[in-house]
């Protein structure tokens, strides 16, 4: 996402059909300069030395976005898809990668994941792993994070695994047909949907929420190629 303006001059960008380091290269119609999509820098042409300014955007689900912005506008979809000879060649999200190159194959492209990141680190928890374990814990840039699964709502809850300065370690305990998420330190039970202790010595206390994405692996890994993946 970039502004397409350089030195006050507006540019119209197009798809050049080229890849640089396996990523999309754009071109502007005004000067023919080639631009990398990954970092918005001019690669070749009259505007070499210039950069496009990045515009912050949020990638999330329609449901999550409309919850945050109920009055949002959205790009209209056309009728039947345009028929290009390249439709099949490029568009296979299960093998996501631009122009037929293979995407990150650690997981299937359409595997759902819970993705958590900060400036220097990114971790993906496959939904299948989360559903099986009910709670997964790891360090994100050195800080403890717990991803819990609220089975009845089919929703993850992602929290800092720290309470009042003390780290907590979470695990899942099966009680008959139910699975309880407890901390090892006090044995308190936690609501995965609210991040709140519902019984035990810490009852009533809340964990701090951590922003996350619930998306397909192909989308997450395209943005965060250095992501770690939590396995079983």
């Amino acid at each position, binding site marked *: *996402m*970039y*502004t*397409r*303006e350089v030195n006050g001059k*507006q*540019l*119209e*960008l*197009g*798809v*050049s*059909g*080229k*890849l*640089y*380091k396996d990523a*999309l*290269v*754009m*071109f502007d119609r005004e000067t023919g300069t*080639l631009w990398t*999509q990954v970092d918005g820098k001019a*690669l*070749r042409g009259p505007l070499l030395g210039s950069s*496009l300014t990045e*515009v912050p*955007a*949020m*990638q*999330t*689900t*329609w*449901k999550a*976005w*409309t919850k*945050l*912005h*109920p*009055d*949002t*506008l*959205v*790009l*209209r*979809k056309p009728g039947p*898809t*345009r028929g*290009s000879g*390249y439709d099949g060649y*490029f*568009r296979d*999200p299960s093998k996501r990668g631009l*122009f*037929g190159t293979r995407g990150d194959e650690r997981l299937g492209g359409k595997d759902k994941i819970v993705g958590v990141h900060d400036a220097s680190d990114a971790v993906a928890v496959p939904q299948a792993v989360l559903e099986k374990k009910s709670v997964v814990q790891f360090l994100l840039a050195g800080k403890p994070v717990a991803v819990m699964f609220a089975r009845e709502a089919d929703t993850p809850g992602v929290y800092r695994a720290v309470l009042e300065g003390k780290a907590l370690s979470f695990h899942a305990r099966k009680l008959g047909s139910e699975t309880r998420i407890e901390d090892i330190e006090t044995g308190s039970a936690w609501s995965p949907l609210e991040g709140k202790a519902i019984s035990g010595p810490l009852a009533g206390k809340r964990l701090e929420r951590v922003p996350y994405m619930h*998306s*397909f692996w192909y*989308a997450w890994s*395209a943005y965060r190629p250095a992501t770690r993946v939590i396995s079983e």
Partner: protein
Amino acid sequence: MLKKFSILVCVLGFAFSAAGVDGQQRQRVEEKIGDGTMVTVLAPDAIPALNQPVFVRRQEADKWMADGELVLGLLDPVTGQAKAYSLWHLEHHEIVNDRLGGHPIAVTW
């Protein structure tokens, strides 16, 4: 003498066609720029960027947008208007030339 000459011509002809001198593109063109390589896979605009995008209200879009469908969401810094672009569009067009806060932007993914 003639036989040797014809063999030579055949060999040279083969060598030239393999290198693409006969005008046919046999292999992807590669170019080193900086610390990376640029390859040409398609002609420009083989994948058409989307210009003059049209937006609809959320209520109408709810009929054909799926809950779990991925979107890129933006907030107009001037008007506070939220705008979303389905990744479906970005997969088909790669680039949407749009405007935000009075400035031209390119929505890419």
